[in-house]
């Protein structure tokens, strides 16, 4: 089945739809930043985007490559220090949504961005925690977005960088996972158009539970796709090597 959009575009659009207008969002770099800015440029113009570099209420014209690009500081309502952003703004409980990605996720939403293999003798040394432990435990709700693969969706993360207890939804390039009430485990609740269930099971390293009310994601609208593509074009031009 062919579409006029890519699986990555589908993922970003569905991730963006999770944010509500006016929410205060602590944004990780990469896929979360792309989705949060798409939300801000479409249905959530009053979302307050906060990056851990200390930029509060930022409205970048192009996606930042790093968490501290000039674009973030120049378009922010205000800029504060790093001790202040973590103490007064995050750990104090002022954040509605933490928006994260990771190298690995398990069935309970625990995330790993630290090591693959043993901590003291890692096969792959990943960047590490950054702000994730406090974002995942202090934001009222955590949204995760990452690409679906059996390497990333593992029965148990090699290292628990941040807890999954507040993860409410996981958006991938294949579908959407959520928690059912009274369950710690994530359930598949939606497939993106053209994706079949076996494909998701194949790319999930545990016995994936499927909701009784499995749905199909609404395809991207012309507006969503248009705004996203313009954003990515501006970004590519700005960061051209």
């Amino acid at each position: 089945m062919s579409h006029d959009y890519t699986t990555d575009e589908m993922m970003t659009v569905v991730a963006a739809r999770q944010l509500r207008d006016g929410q205060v969002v602590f944004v990780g770099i990469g896929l979360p930043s792309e989705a949060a800015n798409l939300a801000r440029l479409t249905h959530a113009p009053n979302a307050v985007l906060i990056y851990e570099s200390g930029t509060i209420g930022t409205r970048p014209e192009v996606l930042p490559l790093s968490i501290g690009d000039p674009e973030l500081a120049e378009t922010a309502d205000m800029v504060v220090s790093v001790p202040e952003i973590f103490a007064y703004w995050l750990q104090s409980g002022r954040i509605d949504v933490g928006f994260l990605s990771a190298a690995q996720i398990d069935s309970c939403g625990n995330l790993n961005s630290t090591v693959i293999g043993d901590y003291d003798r890692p096969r792959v040394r990943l960047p590490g925690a950054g702000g994730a432990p406090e974002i995942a435990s202090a934001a009222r709700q955590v949204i995760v977005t990452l690409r679906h693969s059996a390497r990333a969706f593992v029965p148990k993360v090699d290292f628990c960088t941040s807890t999954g207890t507040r993860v409410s939804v996981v958006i991938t390039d294949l579908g959407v996972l959520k928690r059912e009430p009274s369950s710690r485990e994530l359930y598949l609740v939606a497939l993106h158009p053209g994706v079949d269930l076996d494909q998701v099971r194949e790319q999930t390293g545990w016995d994936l539970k499927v909701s009784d009310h499995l749905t199909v994601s609404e395809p991207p609208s012309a507006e969503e796709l248009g705004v996203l593509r313009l954003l990515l074009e501006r970004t590519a031009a700005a960061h051209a090597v």
Partner: protein
Amino acid sequence: MAEFTTLHDAVADLVHDGDSVALEGFTHLIPFAAGHEIIRQERRDLTLIRLTPDLIYDQMIGMGCAARLVFSWGGNPGVGSLHRFRDAVENGYPAPLEIEEDSHAGMSVRYSAGASGLPFGVIRANTGSDLFKHNAVAPIVCPFTGEELAAVPALNPDVTVIHAQQADRKGHIGLWGITGVQREAVLAARRSLVTVEEVVDELRPLGPNHVKLPSWVVDAVAVVPGGTHPSYAMGYSTRDNAFYTRWDDISRERDRFTRWMEENVLEVAG
């Protein structure tokens, strides 16, 4: 009072083998020129402290300056791995690198405790992170509420190095934009060096979040325009994102990295 001097003399005077050294700057205002001078003066067995090691510590680790790294996020932002850091952790090349790892919140509280003259700082213990199994965090009970919290040890570097936009003629320092943990890192340190874009008659910010440090908490000031490239100084330069992307290739293989460092750092006068 801060003394105006050259970068070469400031590093020779303030940074010694075996020191714990913090070159701070959160993406913005990273003191690259000072890091390169430390590499040229062949300092060894340093404990390097930084929230985000970034390219500058990748270079210092790859050139054999470091025995230990205290950090919270060791990647090339938006690009991928720090290959020299990974080679040191995964393969012990060019020397084994001991690591002490925290979250950004933990690191910033540790600097704040150091700046306050306190032995430890406090963060919440409910993060569920495996980091707590591997770092120096200790459980502590709030004497007022009984809440279980986590104590993290103060950071007091032997030397902190930062880059700022301006110094005035008395050596007072002004920086703005994203200022990270620089104020805390300078106040926590036993000695400090600030490189600046320029010396001005009066400190005047060209951006938000103006932070000032008085001359008498700084040991040395060196004027190094562009001393933060490929990072940036808001109001003076912009981040060289293309270089950050190219670093992935330059640093991936040991030989190419070493050649690049010889041509672009070692053979360049400080």
